[in-house]
């Protein structure tokens, strides 16, 4: 695991990755274990939800707010906001540790003096981030697959995979914001602030756009618009959405390469 910067970065992130995977698995198990009892009272619940103001429904439940089917339940309880938060928070934390982490720890100078090269360093760090966030996506997928099966409410493996691919790409896109900002200025905190800020702003934009016709035209500015919004599950995949998420990530990676190449490394 000490072969190169990519492998070393994977090794460094193993512990946080395991913690996040365990957390996800636990939460998914908990959620699905209570689903059978929720489904019993789905009728009442649905009545209550319908009585809520439309704005509240949109903000907290998404367009679904549907507890009667497993897909609706998983969308509402997990994928509308919690899963995006998990993916974004995880990707942002990994991204902040990537270049800026080594720089603030003081190890970057030593690395760069050992014929690594700045471009290679950025590419290895970014590749490691992709792999790690993808592993979280796979773990999430597996947990949902197993939990829905055990709960007796199977959702297709393909359907789940589509949703988690969207969310993984969303996480990577926002993580790329952090990667670029922290790589460009060498400060973890700046990258985290940028990633978290962009994440929250885009979530709000997407949510408000569902409620307010004036904002709706600007929905295309939010990455959440491309990751399936509040109901990633059961939407299938759309080429435009995937292309936008991948394109944003690629553009940010490119920006990082350019900006990191040009600047001074701090002691």
């Amino acid at each position, binding site marked *: 695991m000490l072969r190169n910067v990519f492998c070393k970065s994977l090794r460094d992130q193993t512990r946080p990755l395991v913690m996040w995977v365990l957390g996800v698995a636990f939460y998914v198990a908990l959620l699905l274990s209570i689903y059978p009892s929720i489904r019993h009272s789905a009728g009442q619940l649905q009545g209550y939800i319908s009585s809520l103001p439309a704005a509240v429904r949109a903000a907290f439940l998404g367009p679904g707010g549907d507890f009667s089917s497993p897909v609706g339940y998983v969308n509402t309880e997990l994928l509308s906001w919690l899963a995006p938060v998990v993916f974004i928070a995880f990707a942002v934390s990994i991204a902040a540790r990537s270049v800026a982490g080594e720089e603030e720890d003081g190890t970057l100078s030593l690395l760069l*003096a050992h014929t690594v090269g700045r471009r290679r360093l950025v590419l290895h760090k970014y590749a490691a981030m992709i792999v790690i966030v993808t592993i979280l996506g796979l773990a999430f997928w597996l947990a949902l697959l197993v939990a829905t099966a055990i709960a007796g409410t199977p959702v297709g493996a393909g359907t789940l995979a589509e949703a988690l691919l969207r969310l993984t790409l969303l996480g990577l896109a926002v993580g790329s914001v952090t990667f670029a900002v922290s790589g460009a200025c060498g400060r973890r905190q700046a990258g985290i602030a940028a990633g978290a800020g962009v994440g929250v702003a885009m979530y709000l934009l997407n949510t408000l756009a569902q409620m307010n016709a004036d904002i709706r035209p600007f929905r295309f500015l939010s990455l959440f618009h491309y990751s399936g919004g509040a109901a990633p599950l059961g939407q299938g995949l759309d080429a435009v959405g995937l292309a936008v998420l991948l394109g944003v990530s690629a553009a940010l990676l490119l920006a990082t390469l350019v900006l990191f190449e040009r600047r001074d490394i701090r002691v």
Partner: protein
Amino acid sequence: MSSAILTEKLTKSYGKSRGVVALDLEVDAGEVFGFLGPNGAGKTTTIRVLLDLIRPTSGRALVLGRDSHRDTLAIQALSGYLPGELSLYPTLTGSETLRYLANLRGGVEWEHVRALSERLDCDLTKKVSDLSSGNKRKLGLISAFMARPELLILDEPTSGLDPLVQHEFYALIDEVRDAGQTVFLSSHVLPEVQRVCDRVAFIREGELIALEDVSGLTGRAVREIEVVFAEAIPPAAFAGVPGVTQVSVDGKNATTLRLTVTGPVDAAIKKLGEFRVLDLTSRLPDLEDVFMTFYTDGGDHAA
């Protein structure tokens, strides 16, 4: 091509703090070159430009005949670097750290790493987080030497090393010189530079003040001697002694004498023998003082 390092009008300015100003420096291939100056003089800044970790505001640096910015990787492949402020991965052991750095370079002869670690008495099995700062420094030194680089760039190599290890380090430098490798080392300690270097550049506030052969420095060392006598001492007694540049007397009953001696101390010591001495301490003055003596008042010494 015979110069290992060549800087041309190298300037690095920072917002408020000064970096390096129009530095012209030439280090010949095969020599051990000392880069001497007080802390904050611009030594580390210069070194970081050589390694392309920071970019000059103007001017340029050629390392091993290559442009420091355009041919960074080629330069790094041929050089070993010890950072002034060394940070390592706390969770790795010493040998894991060196394996990683060696892998990044495309591998080194591991036998050599082992030999170096034995010479420097460095335990490679311990985790970095359990190492003292001196032992971490040893790991840094090994990483710089392990690839047998053509050029060694060492930023304050002996800071934090105990005297025994320092001695071993000096021996290493001698061997490296014999092998034809070039060493560029920074220091703020004059005796160290005198011990290992062929030539020395003095830098202060980002400017090159002087460039000297070390042989020209010997015999010109400045030291302060403080002597406590059994009885009061007339300062005039030391005024004319060869080498003594400053005399003062204080302490209770005027029994403490302070001398600044430049060059051989023989005459001053003989003179002291005429009185009853209770205590004697001698210390090398700060570099700043050395500069003052060499290049301000001591005009006759200036290169």
